């Protein structure tokens, strides 16, 4: 059975903004899938539908055979702008991943289970930040912050890891580092991962499989060998390669 299956999903915002148009695909357990596509193509909407934050207008999302109906704590998310609490240490930030299974009184008193504390440190070790565990998140570099964000997601013990343009605001080296740690964590834990990316070269380096989205529809679905430069050009520039102005595809309004 597929770990994630999304069938005929359409999402319409308001009355007439079509963000996703009849999208269907399945993801196997442990697969590292990269979603590619120009801004406004529907990548973010797709991720929001997958973690239950946005209900699809039509169609079904299933995880492990069960339909996804709302927010669930076994789906973890890594955000583009890390969204850490900057005044807290890396360790405390990672621990917030355990909030979903900690009662609110315990969490306000910061009485976490020893198991959760170890899992937070274990996750920080996975992303290579064990020695910086007590450092304030605000004083860390962009790449380090994003790695703490990944650690927080891992502490959630997710069955599915989603990442919405996790390295868009990082320089190429930090971006490679972060993607490397994410890939390694996913492999160690056999974690199904779906990440949206802008940088085609980085995507090609880390993805097992690529799904290209344009104007809300899946245009491409295949492995690294099938992701040719022609394919990428078509994905980002449409049929106007060589004719239209460069970057025209990216100019389309964000939904």
């Amino acid at each position, binding site marked *: 059975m597929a770990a994630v299956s999304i069938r005929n999903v359409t999402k319409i915002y308001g009355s007439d903004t079509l963000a996703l148009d009849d999208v269907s695909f399945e993801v196997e357990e442990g697969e590292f899938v990269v979603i590619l596509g120009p801004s406004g193509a529907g990548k973010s909407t797709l991720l929001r539908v997958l973690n239950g934050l946005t209900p699809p207008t039509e169609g079904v999302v299933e995880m492990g055979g069960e339909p996804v109906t709302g927010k669930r704590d076994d789906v973890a998310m890594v955000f583009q702008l890390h969204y850490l609490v900057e005044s807290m240490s890396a360790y405390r930030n990672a621990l917030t991943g355990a909030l979903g299974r900690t009662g609110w009184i315990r969490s306000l008193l910061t009485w976490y289970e020893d198991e959760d504390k170890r899992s937070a440190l274990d996750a920080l*070790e996975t992303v290579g930040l*064990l020695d910086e*565990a*007590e450092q304030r998140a605000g004083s860390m570099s962009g790449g380090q912050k994003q790695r703490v964000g990944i650690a927080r997601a891992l502490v959630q013990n997710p069955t599915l890891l989603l990442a919405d343009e996790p390295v868009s605001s990082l320089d190429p080296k930090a971006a490679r580092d972060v993607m490397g740690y994410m890939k390694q964590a996913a492999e160690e834990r056999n974690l199904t991962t779906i990440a949206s990316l802008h940088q085609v070269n980085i995507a090609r380096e880390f993805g097992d499989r690529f799904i290209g989205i344009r104007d809300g529809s899946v245009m491409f679905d295949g492995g690294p060998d099938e992701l040719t430069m022609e394919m990428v050009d078509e994905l980002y520039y449409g049929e106007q390669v060589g004719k239209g102005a460069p970057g025209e595809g990216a100019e389309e309004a964000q*939904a």
Partner: protein
Amino acid sequence: MSAIEETLARIQRHRRQRQALAVLAVAGVLTIFWMGLQYLNFDLWELTDQLPTWYDWLAAFKTPNFQDFSLYSIENGLTGWSGLFDTIWYVITNPLAGFDMVMNSFTEGKETTLLGLSVVTVVIGVCGTILGFPFALLFGVLGSERVTPFPFNFLFRGVMSLIRAIPALVWILIYVPLAGISPVSAVLAVGTDTIGILGRLFTDELEEIEDGPIEAISSTGANRAQTVSFGMLSQVSTSFIAWTLYSLEINVRVAVSLGVVGAGGLGRYIQLKLSLLDYGPAAAGILMVVFIVLTVELTSSRLRARLRPGEEGGSSRSLLDAIRDLGDIRKWLGTKVERN
């Protein structure tokens, strides 16, 4: 021991140290609280002895006496809630005569009716804000280091700090030889207070703006005044309006408290009735205060919410749009429209 266990032990050691400090800090705060109360001769038993008197006063709020609500209620000797409701009923059933009566309550009755006194209080707040605004703008803008080079900006900041150091309740006393304790001195006091508070908010707002647009404007060859006006003030104009509306809310409340020391309006009415132990009318006066302060606050905060960028409309709104939106009842209720 593994690296994880070592780190966990270290974190927990640090945590215990922080907890010990926190316990000490809480104990310190409680000690200060207790010693402070002793210093102020706080006596719990004295308070409990006074409880029955206090209950009488609170009970007046169940039956507030709106005898002085309007000229109509005074002339007809209406008391209790009837003073309020019968006046409203009279205005509804006799719109023409009712309108005249309300206008007369605002003018002839401005020192005797709750309607007139409310208008006095609101007008003190509004006029004080209008009086203070240009000076707040001048001192606030000149107090910013971006506009006036250090250390000269501190001249203006210093004046504003000095004004803030004196509360409005003391400012009115300073103006007593000029205008007595009257609504006029209240307007002067509110206006002065506004310079200090609103000017400071303007300065802070200017310190936080982005450098990019300023640099871009000055690189076009604009002179200093043009750079200030197009690069800086244009960035903050909507937030200046929003802060001024906020200052208006505060000033209406300040006008009430100035009334308590005798400057007229609702505050003075409440103070007079309380000193006569006439609890019913005093309670009615306080209910009027709640009503006008909430009305001013609701209107101003709705306007300010409309002015803020990124809400509902998606982009920054002009004051004109904001005022137009006030007519739309759905927006008052915050009915959400799903965004695209």
